[in-house]
């Protein structure tokens, strides 16, 4: 409804912005030779949420990305970086406008974004049309690496299908036969629901009811009452960010915590445990990252992150970090020659990322092939329990890449 510009944006009025962008477009052609004379910087456009329920996720991703680049002396394949930032407000309706601010006005070389799946779909559409390189550090919309896949679009996080697919198997192994599913009704929620159901019902279990509410509403009370009335063996859910914290605390306040065990994809308990530590104890989730992973790589990353940003890293920070690694490694292998798109893309496709989450490779749909972990909330951590699924690759869903 209302317009909240990113506070880091320069304070230009709308009218001035329009006249400016016209001027920039006209001036770009004239000033091109002049720009060439300078050691050309790589322009990186960060389109992430700076406000709303996903704001903290945007911060973690930006931090992770900058950390990866910082480890390489702030350069990508020997070239300096110029950052541009836009707050996408997690608002799909504004996705085309916001994406174009970076692609058309700022003429960025690489787009990095975003968290919300609906917004990312809008970005992917423009990236396909303009050929701009798009790196997605979170949004899991299945279609992006499915029917909408494109050679210039890469994802460093997960597809919505991926992290929650092993949860069904895990819950069946723990003896749960009937489950109520609950999530926000938007792309990520619906796709997680489908994936969970597919995995769980394959084991003979049954999803007795699917509950949903519009994103990003947090009035869970009626739905919790319905869960209490159905009395399933367990509840599985998909929520993230501040809404997830709210769900966990409402679930406990409704007295369900000790009666009907709560499971979810790991986004439920990532980055929210400081706020709802007591209410979240014992909640089990599956995700491609966990606290206290038994790996030296991860420990080093976490120490470095805490030192630099004075806060604990989470899965979003890792994804941002891996996005930085992906771009940096590819740029190094083409020796900073960004113009050679074909070689750059080839380098990204063959990449092996030595990530804090464990090494992963790029699937042919441009989505990570990675391990999924089972975790349990203990204290303020999502403690690693076991590997729920080794090297899980998403099923090919109609991705035809030219």
């Amino acid at each position, binding site marked *: 409804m209302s*317009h909240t510009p990113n506070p880091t944006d320069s304070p230009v009025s709308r009218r001035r912005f329009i006249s400016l962008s016209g001027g920039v477009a006209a001036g770009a052609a004239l000033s091109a030779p002049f720009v060439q004379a300078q050691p050309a910087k790589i322009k990186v456009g960060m389109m992430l949420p700076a*406000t709303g*329920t996903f704001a903290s996720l945007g911060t973690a991703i930006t931090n992770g990305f900058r950390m990866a680049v910082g480890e390489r002396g702030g350069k990508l394949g020997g070239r300096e970086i110029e950052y541009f930032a836009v707050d996408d407000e997690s608002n799909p309706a504004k996705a085309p406008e916001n994406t174009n601010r970076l692609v058309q006005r700022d003429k960025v070389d690489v787009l990095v974004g975003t968290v919300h799946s609906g917004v990312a779909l809008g970005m992917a559409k423009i990236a396909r049309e303009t050929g701009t390189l798009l790196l997605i550090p979170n949004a899991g919309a299945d279609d992006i690496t499915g029917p909408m896949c494109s050679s210039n679009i890469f994802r460093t996080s997960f597809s919505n299908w991926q992290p929650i697919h092993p949860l069904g198997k895990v819950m069946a192994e723990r003896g749960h036969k009937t489950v109520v599913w609950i999530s926000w009704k938007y792309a990520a929620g619906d796709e997680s629901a489908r994936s969970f159901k597919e995995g769980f019902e394959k084991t003979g279990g049954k999803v007795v009811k699917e509950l949903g*509410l519009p994103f990003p509403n947090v009035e869970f*009370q*009626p739905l919790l*009452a319905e869960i209490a009335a159905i009395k399933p063996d367990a509840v599985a859910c998909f929520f993230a960010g501040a809404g997830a914290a709210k769900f966990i605390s409402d679930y406990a306040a*409704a*007295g369900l915590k000790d009666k009907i065990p709560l499971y979810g994809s790991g986004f439920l308990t990532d980055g929210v445990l400081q706020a709802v530590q007591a209410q979240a104890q014992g909640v089990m989730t599956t995700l491609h990252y966990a606290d206290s992973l038994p790996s030296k790589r991860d420990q080093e990353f976490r120490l470095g992150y805490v030192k630099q940003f004075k806060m604990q890293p989470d899965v979003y920070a890792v994804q941002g970090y891996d996005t930085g690694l992906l771009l940096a490694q590819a740029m190094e292998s083409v020796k900073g020659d960004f113009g050679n798109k074909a070689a750059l893309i080839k380098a990204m496709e063959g990449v092996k990322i030595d990530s804090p989450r464990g090494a992963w490779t790029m699937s042919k749909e441009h989505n990570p092939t990675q391990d999924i972990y089972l975790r349990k909330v203990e204290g303020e951590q999502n403690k690693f329990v076991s590997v729920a699924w080794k090297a899980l690759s998403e099923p090919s869903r109609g991705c035809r890449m030219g």
Partner: protein
Amino acid sequence: MDHLAPILIQVLNGLQYGLLLFLVASGLTLIFGIMGVINLAHGSFYMIGAYFAWSLASYFGNLLTAILVGIVLSVLLGLALERLLIRHFYGRDHLYQVLLTYGLILIFEQLRSLIWGDEVQGVKVPELFNYSIPLTDTLSYPVYRLVISAACVAIALGLHWLIRRTRLGMMIRAGAHNREMTEAMGINVRMLFAVVFSLGVALAALAGMLASPVSSVYPNMGSQVLIICFVVVVIGGIGSVKGALVGALLIGLADTFGQVYLPQLAGMVVYLLMAAVLVFRPEGLFRKT
């Protein structure tokens, strides 16, 4: 009993949500019905109330004090806005008012960002009410939600008394029916409008303050409420406080039951209800207060 309990609990949820909507919608309908001003910024007052609750509660360490101070602040905000801006738009075309109050939304959002930041914030439930009472063997009900409902009922009764039983209420009703005649009778309608406007602002802000512990506090939280409150006002009949109450309860129940029993249509049910009401009663369920 076993089959009835879940339904009764959902009725409770629906009424609680509806009562909260009523607080916001009553101000909206009063301002439009009596002053003829379309106030799009009404949702912002709800948001401002929630942020007042959050920042004042962390300052005083006590939500009740925060709410009392917050009410005073929002009345002052209402008086100032009426004096500086709204006053100049009475009797003008609604389009000007829409433009003005939409501009106010942008200004309030920007101010909110500067003063309070863009993070999502939580407000603690007051210790006194921070427990749940068991309703069935699986479900407990947070007491604070019952407190919200009780507060809303008290305010609804207070409003009814104010409008129907007091001299001020009589003037408000007279002003709503016929402004010129009321002025001719020697009543200061300007003053009256200032009172009504700040009353509306205070009601919306109070709703935001009461709701803050259960809804959390976040940017743009007013816009969702604004849209749903316009639906309430349209259903109830523009300008009718009684209509706002009935409309709000209907919407609260429809939304609650819609979410549970028609999950595929979650979010659409209230608009379908509005469409249905408009087909049969285009002026809404009730006439102007």
